[in-house]
């Protein structure tokens, strides 16, 4: 996928000025939904520990579980295609589609497919990919990338849907009326039914892979993923290597966390375990079952300070609770994965040179970590990326100089206190009478949204602290 992460600041400024986007972003309900689901399950906090531990155990033995998983897939008549890079994965998918003589390919929602750019590659080779998740479908019509990992069309309003459907479904009467959202849904359902029945290959992602059984697991509410993997002659699963878990029980424990964290449902409508191809005497199901197992930069995270990121189960709770995501939306982040999890993962996968802005797009408020179902220390890892950015001299010069000055002062307490006292004194004098500054030179962006309170007389924190201790000692 095309990357605009280096222009994060420009992207964010544009997003803030976009009234339609701001209208869509103002539709928040996910906090309350998650909170309700969590409150209804007293064991939730302990389940988060369990989820973290299951993922850590798997990552510590990732090579073993991947081999065990592949063995089981093959025993069930499936094929595993190990792909180190995005190029290899695209080639593997195309090869499977060509062998199947595919003209139309239906697709379930998959972030790894976005990461690999599967659709463009198929189209360039004369194969028609059809996204079947409702949100992905409209984005395909609009030629836009998703802005959220579970609600890809989060940034759109109802009028955008109506407009796109009128423009794309030109065989229907142009003056038809969409009375309700349900009418939009019904039109998409009819349209996509035709694609489901026509497709030669169905491509889905995977929320989990299970080593014990060789199964791939998808979680959806619409049922599109299930139609995608059931009706065509060939089913292709795209999955990255960190999706594997040992057993059905391990997967079940993680599933108890996933829907609650993602949409606030106790369980998604369809949680489906696929194992190999159609069995003898089966009346339906695909005749071929392929797993394209993708690394694309993840194995290099193992053993580093970013290994914990591989625990991520893609629930989107972090972005749903992120104040930065909440005002910029997902497109500003400039690549596949937005929000806090993207700010950690994107630099790992595309390089910190391109994505250095992302770990800086955080106030470190810590809400992401506080809701992460597998307790990924997201702020800590963003900090690691900021350190790497600094080490590699990617930080802009004025910022480096300021950090250098601050570092010099911070290591010299006497000088630091003197500087603080001088700065406070000056601000206190200037601000006397008005109480707060509505504008500061060099900090206009900051003061545009809020006032900076003028320091009150009485000295710095350290001065007061010293006075109080003296007082207490007397």
């Amino acid at each position, binding site marked *: 996928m095309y990357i605009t992460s280096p222009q994060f600041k420009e992207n964010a400024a544009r997003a803030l000025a976009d009234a339609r986007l701001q209208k869509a972003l103002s539709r928040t309900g996910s906090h309350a939904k998650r909170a309700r689901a969590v409150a209804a399950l007293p064991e939730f906090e302990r389940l988060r520990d369990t989820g973290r531990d299951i993922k850590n155990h798997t990552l510590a033995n990732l090579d073993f579980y991947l081999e065990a998983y592949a063995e089981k897939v093959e025993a069930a008549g499936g094929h595993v295609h190990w792909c180190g890079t995005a190029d290899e994965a695209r080639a593997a998918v195309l090869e499977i589609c060509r062998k199947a003589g595919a003209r139309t390919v239906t697709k379930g929602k998959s972030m790894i497919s976005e990461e690999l750019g599967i659709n463009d590659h198929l189209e360039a080779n004369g194969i028609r990919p059809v996204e079947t998740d409702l949100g992905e479908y409209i984005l395909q019509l609009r030629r836009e990338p998703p802005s959220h990992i579970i609600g890809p069309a989060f940034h759109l309003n109802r009028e955008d849907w109506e407009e796109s459907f009128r423009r794309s479904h030109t065989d229907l009467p142009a003056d038809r009326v969409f009375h309700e959202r349900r009418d939009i849904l019904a039109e998409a359902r009819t349209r996509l039914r035709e694609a489901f029945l026509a497709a030669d290959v169905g491509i889905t992602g995977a929320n989990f892979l299970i080593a014990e059984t060789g199964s791939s697991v998808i979680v959806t*509410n619409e049922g599109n993923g299930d139609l995608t993997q059931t009706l065509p002659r060939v089913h292709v699963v795209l999955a990255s290597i960190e999706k594997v878990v040992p057993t059905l029980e391990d997967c079940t424990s993680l599933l108890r966390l996933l829907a609650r964290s993602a949409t606030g449902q106790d369980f998604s409508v369809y949680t489906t375990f696929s194992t190999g191809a159609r069995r003898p005497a089966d009346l339906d199901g695909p005749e071929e079952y392929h797993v394209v197992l993708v690394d694309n930069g993840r194995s290099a995270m193992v053993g580093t300070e970013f290994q914990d990121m591989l625990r991520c189960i893609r629930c989107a709770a972090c972005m749903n609770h992120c104040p930065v995501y909440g005002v910029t939306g997902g497109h500003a982040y400039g690549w596949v994965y937005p929000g806090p999890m993207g700010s950690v993962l994107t630099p790992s996968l595309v390089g910190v040179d391109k994505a250095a802005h992302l770990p800086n797009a955080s106030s470190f408020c810590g809400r992401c970590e506080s809701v992460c179902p597998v307790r990924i220390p997201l702020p800590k890892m963003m900090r690691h990326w900021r350190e790497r950015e600094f080490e590699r001299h990617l930080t802009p010069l004025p910022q480096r100089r300021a950090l250098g000055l601050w570092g010099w002062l911070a290591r010299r307490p006497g000088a630091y206190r003197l500087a603080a006292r001088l700065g406070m004194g000056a601000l206190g004098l200037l601000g006397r009478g008005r109480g707060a500054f509505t504008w500061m030179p060099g900090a206009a962006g900051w003061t545009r949204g809020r006032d900076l309170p003028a320091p009150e007389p009485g000295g710095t924190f350290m001065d007061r602290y010293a006075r109080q201790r003296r007082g207490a000692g007397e």
Partner: protein
Amino acid sequence: MSRNAILGAIRRGLKRGELPQDQQEMLRDRMARHPRHLIPARSRLPHGEQVALFIARLEAEFGTLERVPDASQVPQAVADYLAGQNLPPRLAMAPHPELQALPWSSLPLLSVEARRAEGTDMVSVQHGYAGIAETGTLMLPSAPERPTTLNLLAETAIVVLRAADVVGAYEEAWDRLRGAGPMPRNVMLVTGPSRSADIEQTLELGAHGPRRLHVILVDEPGPPP
């Protein structure tokens, strides 16, 4: 080759070679034992209350349910439901022996075909393997007598489930399934009818899968006569 390159990179990251045999043995043993983790207490109930929890959770997820005292009443319950919903008396039914043994012929106006579902079917009847009380979830494993398309293609999906097959937690359903043989090709856990919240984050029922999910719960234990 990519397989070895990926495994090699993981091992380098973990700062070790291939796991020693004894450790591999331990992990294989863990998979064979598949230990359970923390299971929420909400479904740890006497069976009757598990059934009540299953019903409450299913209805909270927009499913509907009718309870019949014995299997012979299933065809009439299906016919009444279709009439009540203004649906045509035609359905595709799982070719499962328990369903085929039911007295469908007593309802000459109802057309029942035992087969997989097609895109044109409006109503399907599936055989329920288990009900999971914890979240009101149906377990529907594929088999020649339980085609997956019956869970997906019709706008109205009816599932016939014996009350005796309601369990508490997912783990109990997995154990039953393991006891029945190798992992089926497809196992669907279905919780309510299909839905989407992709348009303005507002929930609408009936996305690509069934718009209605109706469970007929049979109280009689054991297979029908």
